[in-house]
């Protein structure tokens, strides 16, 4: 039987991706460690290992945990940037360890890895996420509607759906909130992630509690504390325009009054 065949295209990038195990390079991970069962002090520990530069920082952390020091502790699950477990400060910037390839962060120099800031450090890279989720829960992050449910789906135009598309992508990794200097010094600030999740509903045409959410974010610890440093937008591994979302909430609050 004849089948459709096309001329195969081959770019340099594809060739590079297809070459098997590249040469290994020596990588040093400098990890900020804290174990309350051992000491009340933080220590920086260097781990040197041979890695393929195409591997992830998470792979390097696993190599440490599995081969060098089993006590190194961090959270992770999906390993491809979808579950939000492994936000950490890598070379001074918040990222997901599973979405950061070694070759992209200058592996010639020691790579620093720290827990995200502004949350209680419980052990090594593990922080207490409760305050973060508390802020999320405090913005009514669920659809609220009035009246009778329709028998079929609620209708929503593709444009209305697109209005809040960006903020539906959030995986609650806390990279944004813990990159915010305001949050570092005052954990009562709702923080970018909670605002992003409020935005997702405020701008959903089906929702009817936008007013209440705006009122919550109009608070002392709400959107007005944002100083537009854009750290959150830079940190978001999902590419959400976080600062823009916050500004849109501010604008909604202003236009509500004026």
């Amino acid at each position, binding site marked *: *039987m004849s*089948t459709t065949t096309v001329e195969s295209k081959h770019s340099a990038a594809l060739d590079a991706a*297809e070459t*098997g195990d590249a040469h290994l390079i020596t990588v040093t991970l400098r990890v900020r460690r804290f174990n309350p069962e051992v000491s009340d002090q933080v220590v920086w520990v260097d781990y040197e290992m041979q890695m393929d530069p195409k591997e992830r920082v998470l792979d390097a952390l696993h190599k440490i945990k*599995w081969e060098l020091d089993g006590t190194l502790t961090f959270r992770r699950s999906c*390993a491809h940037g979808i579950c939000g477990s492994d936000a950490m400060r890598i070379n001074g910037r918040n990222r997901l360890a599973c*979405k950061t390839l070694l070759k992209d962060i200058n592996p010639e120099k020691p790579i620093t890895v720290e827990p995200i800031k502004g949350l209680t450090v419980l052990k090594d890279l593990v922080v207490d996420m409760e305050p973060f989720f508390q802020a999320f*829960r405090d913005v009514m992050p669920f659809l609220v509607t009035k009246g009778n449910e329709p028998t079929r*789906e609620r*209708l929503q135009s593709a444009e209305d759906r697109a209005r809040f598309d960006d903020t539906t992508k959030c995986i609650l990794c806390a990279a944004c909130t813990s990159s915010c200097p305001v949050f570092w010094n005052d954990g009562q600030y709702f923080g970018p992630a909670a605002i992003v999740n409020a935005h997702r509903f405020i701008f959903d045409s089906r929702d009817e509690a936008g007013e209440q959410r705006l009122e919550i974010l109009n608070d002392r610890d709400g959107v007005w504390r944002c100083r537009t440093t854009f750290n959150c937008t830079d940190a978001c591994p999902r590419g959400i325009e976080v600062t823009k979302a916050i500004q849109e909430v501010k604008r909604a609050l202003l236009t509500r009054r004026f």
Partner: protein
Amino acid sequence: MQIHKYDTVIVGAGGAGMRAAIEATKRSRTAVLTKLYPTRSHTGAAQGGMAAALANVEEDNWEWHTFDTIKGGDYLVDQDAAEILAKEAIDAVLDLEKMGLPFNRTPEGRIDQRRFGGHTRNHGEAAVRRSCYAADRTGHMILQTLYQNCVKEGVEFFNEFYVLDLLLAEVDGVKRTAGVVAYELATGEIHVFQAKAVIFASGGNGKFYKVTSNAHTLTGDGQAAAWRRGLPLEDMEFFQFHPTGIWRMGILLTEGARGEGGILRNKDGERFMERYAPVMKDLASRDVVSRAIYTEIREGRGCGPEGDHVYLDLTHLPPEQLDAKLPDITEFARTYLGIEPYTDPVPIQPTAHYAMGGIPTNVQGEVLTDNTTVVPGLYAAGEVACVSVHGANRLGTNSLLDINVFGRRSGIAAAEYAATHDFVELPENPDSLVVELVERMRDANGGERVTDIRKALQETMDANAMVFRTEQTLKQAVSDIAALKVRYKSISVQDKGKRYNTDLLEAVELGNLLDLAEVLAVSALARKESRGGHYREDYPTRDDVNFMRHTMAYREVGEDGEESIRLDYKPVVQTRYQPMERKY
């Protein structure tokens, strides 16, 4: 040890667990125990969509969906269950929409639908648009929406609690559910949860394969806990290999990519699926496509310097379509491979994806202790369970459906059971097994490293129990696993602490994987036929005379304490569909 008392305890906060929790919380005092924060569950990784015959974009009905499910499962599907799945699918999707799920929309504002492998109109005539989706983030949206509604309903979560044991107590000669035992990651404390009803929704167990789309945490803890307590596991030999995982990494590229028009090509640029499935081509069912890919590779038509993969070609699709419908997977290709899917084909290979088998249940989600007897108060839903709606091979988009339909059903059933029954008295020293396990692990100072054993397990599973299997490879797998189990007895755990001791838990998880891999290999060895996801090169055809039946594996402990696996079989429920040859 702390003791808690709840009417209903749910183990797992993925799609199935949270769907159940929303129902159970309304009806009974409910606790959800989960080893991950709910939004970290692997349901969030699902991309393609959720099937339901909404007929929003073209003619469709649930009967066709039932047929496709049964045919897709190579007739090993229990047909009464498949009918429920397809019928309740419509409300399941509409319920999610009402909870707020942001589906993609048609120009009229309805939920949009797209094509997916194995879903056809009128019993196989042509591909039908049945998958409801939200870009390539359907699972993410389901997980977020369910969590949002759990917040709304005030569901009580115990996050980072690892359930390690199931408590059953014999009352009047009947095994009944008494509760579960959990290990709190933050403190190392052991908690006993006494419950009238328990629902297992702890997800899959794909981590015993090396190339897999599954998360590091999918280690089959629920299946293993039930197994250790003498409950059977059904159809464990049936494991799905998804055709399009990123080469070597296993990260999934949704079938929706082919639903949108993506094409598989070999090194000659040939659209080889036309040879294997003339009608459905690239959208044939997953087992068919995975085998086709490996056949191409074996026959020397694989791509790359080592000829060990093929291409998923999206380059003929307009970039706007990729951006709108497949934004995440195109980004995966950019991030992890450094290539641009607008212009380059993506190197892929089949990746271990989904466990069709699991804890046997009936259509109410009640767990079975043999072919017919239920364990009062015990339920299972989601990937951990085997209803069986997926039979020998699950159709894409049917699992997100499964977790919603059977999650809901078991949530309601469990809460109603709890309302009409009393607590069963806890056995004496309810935590003894877990205490013993944790202490043993903490004190483990042997010469073997967990990582070495895990790696060896994954390697033997990939080599011997993957897409193609033979008597010889499976025997190899069985003996390798047996040897690894011996080595596992002398592992060492370096972290001796109590707080966040993930080192210890990884060792426990490895134990679960070893148990389950053994069940898989032993069940596969005994099934001397090829059906769905289970392909035996030495028995390449389906054998309905001898094997139109579910495998039921039981753990037996001999008088000398020696463990062994006993296999039994359970008839398939057939209602209106007679087995036919499966062609796409």
